[in-house]
């Protein structure tokens, strides 16, 4: 959702989004890990979930950190490129460079190992029809739905969110309406950063904390965004679910090694039938 927002409002295909997720993942890890424990952040568990207040604080730190990082990058890199007349490809290549840099710094600090937010085995519980789900996964789904609802509320019910949509629709006219589009851009980066950090922490909770976990998800992310219709947050959510479920279900019939290719087959088929994606709007 963060990726599609940046795409829609700022016209930037942000290849660094995956690694920003990585930063969110590791900032939270810092808080819940030994270093964090020394600061008094670790500890506790909520009911049958695998984590406690430590991760909640970690999530907040991650959100603030990644939002700040995104704003700094906008001012340092993207605003200058925009002023110099840079277009879509310039932004994309710049973000690719940023992506490599961000990942390298994570590896430099935390190394190439895998970590978990909380060690130990977290048993799944059985729900209807013998399907086993971990309590954490309920939490992740809940948080995702909540994030989507909040994003909808922001975009369609608040003054600033509407200004984001207006800037996405027509930046020149937004300026001619008195909207300070530079502020809107900063706001967009903040929202996308918060969403990216959230996604990173959820990914760390579901899988493992690893320096390139966010980056590995980048291509499926783009597939989800394109599938859902570029710039459409709801589309991105549906696209994400479609890509994720298709990938997992596909292993029933094809070799697991071919799994990463599945989203792209879907994208190609969908784009042939609906060039603007499932929920893309015709202007």
């Amino acid at each position, binding site marked *: 959702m963060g990726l599609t927002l940046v795409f829609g409002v700022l016209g930037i295909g942000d290849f660094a989004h995956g690694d920003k997720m990585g930063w969110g993942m590791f900032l939270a890890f810092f808080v819940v890990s030994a270093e964090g424990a020394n600061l008094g952040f670790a500890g506790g568990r909520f009911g049958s979930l695998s984590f406690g207040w430590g991760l909640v604080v970690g999530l907040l730190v991650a959100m603030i950190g990644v939002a700040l990082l995104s704003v700094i990058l906008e001012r340092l890199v993207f605003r200058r490129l925009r002023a110099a007349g840079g277009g879509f490809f310039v932004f994309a290549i710049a973000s690719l460079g940023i992506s490599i840099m961000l990942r390298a710094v994570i590896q430099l600090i935390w190394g190439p190992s895998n970590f978990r937010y909380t060690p130990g085995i977290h048993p799944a519980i059985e729900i209807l029809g013998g399907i086993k789900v971990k309590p954490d996964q309920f939490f992740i789904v809940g948080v995702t739905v909540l994030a989507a609802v909040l994003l909808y509320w922001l975009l369609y019910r608040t*003054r600033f969110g*509407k*200004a984001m949509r*207006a800037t*996405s629709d027509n930046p020149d006219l937004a*300026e*001619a309406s*008195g909207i*300070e589009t530079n502020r809107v851009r900063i706001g967009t980066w903040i929202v996308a950063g918060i969403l990216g950090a959230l996604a990173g922490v959820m990914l760390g909770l579901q899988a493992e904390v690893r320096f390139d976990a966010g980056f590995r998800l980048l291509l499926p992310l783009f597939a989800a965004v394109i599938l859902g219709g570029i710039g459409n947050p709801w589309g991105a959510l549906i696209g994400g679910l479609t890509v994720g479920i298709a990938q997992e279900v596909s292993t029933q019939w094809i070799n697991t090694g071919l799994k990463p290719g599945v989203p792209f087959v879907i994208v190609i088929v969908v784009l042939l039938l609906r060039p603007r994606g499932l929920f893309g709007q015709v202007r």
Partner: protein
Amino acid sequence: MNERTPLLQVEEFSGGYVDGIDIIHDVALDLYQDEILTIIGPNGAGKSTLLKAIVGALPFERGRRWFQGEDVSGWSTPRMIASGVGYVPQVDNVFTSMSIRENLEMGGYMRKTGLRERIAEVLAMFPDLEGRPRERASRLSGGQRQMLAMARALMLDPVMLCLDEPTAALSPAARGELLARIYNIHMSGVGILMVEQNATEALVWSDRAVVMVDGDKALEGTGLDMLTSADVGRAFLGQGDGEGFTIEEGGLT
């Protein structure tokens, strides 16, 4: 007339989109609040460029501009809008993915209070738009879009409205209706600066007009002078622009 402060004053305005290639040269203009001033001229004369520069939508600027007696040279568009200028671009002048109401909300983005009331007031000026606030702008006809574009620009109660070819691509009936609306807006105390291609119709409603040719101000006079001037007709016929700039001999009939 000249003892009053002009609403807008522009002096020695020159510039273009690319450094070193000027589209307009040393243009001077003034507009009073009780006037409709129309800039006419053939395609490529620099009319729209001039209007964009006046509202601060083009980075180039040589020369100075004053608005309500204040030097506003170098001001950005949002700053100009905040100080009482409404601007309606020629194309892409509504947010197509947003509803009528949302378009007006964006027009009133800078309003601290009274947004709801102002939306109701503005809608009352454009009956075509009333009663369907949730309709998406992309579903409106060309004429309705122009109405919405003007309504959006009126949300901040501007004292000056800059219109870039408002009647372009409209049917003759819609053109007449729109110009009548512009006149009504003007009568409520808004100075109008308008760029027009459909010159004859626009001149009828104009107090004054400026003719631009190749980036220069070629002529200036009252709307009626322009309508009856053989020079204006000849100048454009001489350009051979073939785009329907027709002032019949003997003026308006």
